[in-house]
């Protein structure tokens, strides 16, 4: 850690999460500074989602600790902690019975922002994620998958939380929409400078979005490197990943 960043926004310190005799996350240590995007890469069941849920205290570590802004998650009031952490999941996890505007304005509203300020914020957020204000009165089922995902991001950002957790947010999208959203998300993060943990199983996505890429397997941290160095790691599992993703293009060239 450099001296200009004395305290990471998210600090996972030898944390484990054990459920019915099995460690879903085992002795995990990682930290994310403000403005940094860490991509958690790994297969299904490798503990990525569990790690995210330890950060916003949907789960509490059974060993070690998780600190957010220097304070243990278990010492935080969980409601206050979560309102300072944006959370985006696949398909957005939008409330189907709320319009786009109500979905996006949810946290400001429960934080008792005045109505006018919430409305202005919703408009601002929609334009930030590239959605027309006309969509504000629509319901999630009336949107395309890409639009829903944008609404999910807008909702997570609405109360301007310093931390953002994203769990395979673009996983269900077609490749073109996904690439579009990845690009926009990168631009957004360069402006907003959140502390971001982005979970994916897609190496390409990890390399596009991450300042750092961390590979998990069976609840353990295998590798945690700056993006530029990650693909050159000699760890067998990283090699396996890199090869799996470089296979297809090689075949095309023949």
């Amino acid at each position: 850690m450099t001296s200009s960043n004395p305290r990471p926004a998210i600090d996972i310190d030898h944390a484990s999460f054990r459920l019915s005799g099995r460690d879903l996350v085992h002795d995990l240590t990682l930290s994310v500074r403000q403005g940094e995007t860490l991509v958690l890469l790994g297969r299904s069941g490798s503990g990525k989602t569990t790690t995210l849920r330890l950060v916003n205290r949907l789960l509490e570590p059974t060993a070690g600790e998780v600190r957010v802004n220097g304070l243990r998650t278990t010492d935080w009031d969980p409601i206050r902690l979560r309102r300072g952490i944006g959370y985006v999941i696949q398909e957005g996890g939008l409330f189907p019975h709320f319009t786009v505007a109500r979905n996006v304005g949810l946290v400001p509203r429960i934080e008792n922002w005045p109505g006018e300020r919430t409305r202005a914020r919703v408009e601002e957020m929609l334009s930030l994620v590239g959605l027309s204000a006309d969509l504000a009165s629509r319901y999630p089922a009336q949107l395309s998958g890409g639009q829903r995902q944008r609404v999910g991001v807008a909702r997570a950002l609405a109360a301007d939380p310093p931390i953002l957790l994203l769990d395979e947010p673009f996983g269900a999208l077609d490749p073109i929409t996904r690439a579009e959203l990845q690009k926009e998300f990168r631009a957004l993060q360069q402006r907003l400078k959140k502390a971001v943990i982005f979970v994916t199983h897609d190496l390409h996505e990890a390399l596009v979005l991450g300042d750092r890429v961390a590979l998990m397997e069976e609840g353990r941290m295998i590798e945690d490197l700056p993006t530029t160095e990650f693909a050159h790691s000699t760890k067998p599992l990283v090699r396996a990943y890199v090869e799996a993703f470089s296979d297809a293009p090689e075949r095309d060239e023949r």
Partner: protein
Amino acid sequence: MNFWHFMVTNRQQVLDLTIEHITLVGISILFAVLLGIPLGIMITRKPQLSKLVLGSANVLQTIPALALFGFLLPMPWIGARGGRMAVLALTLYALLPLIRNTYAGIRNVDPAVVEAGRAMGLTDQQLLWQVELPLASGVIVAGIRIATVVSIGLATIAAAIGAGGLGEFIFRGLSMVHYQVILAGAVPAAVLALAADVGLGALERKLGMLYARA
């Protein structure tokens, strides 16, 4: 004397007994809603109690109505008036569909939606009122509909313990072996049940469309 003639000449009594019938059912359903929905919510929060609560409501349902009145008769205050006994019995019978549908409705809300709400910092109360209950409302109204339709039929038996309602005609007709009089109780009861079924069914579909857009 045919059925219509009987209905017209006794229209005031038909009307009175119908209103009495609706009152019995209405009060019972109101009590069952006030008791059943909170119980249903409670067992989604404490799943270890769900077997006990649903099991008890199930057992209540299996007691024959006339036998239940027999059990209620010796009870203080309740047993003193037919109306009180009838309301208590109808409430108990209506509990199961209400508890069960509230529980099932909330349990069936998309877990991703609930998790998203929790992760955004909704309190348990906010999650319940803003997310779970609205999304479960169609299923809960379906429970109210079933309970109401069943209660309207069941309430005719309440006349046996002097609680009044359309059952009066039915029991009178049975003792007189007079079909028109039986029909004077049975037909309005059937019409009430159908009306409740159609009305609450429409509400249920409306809520379903409004809230279950996923």
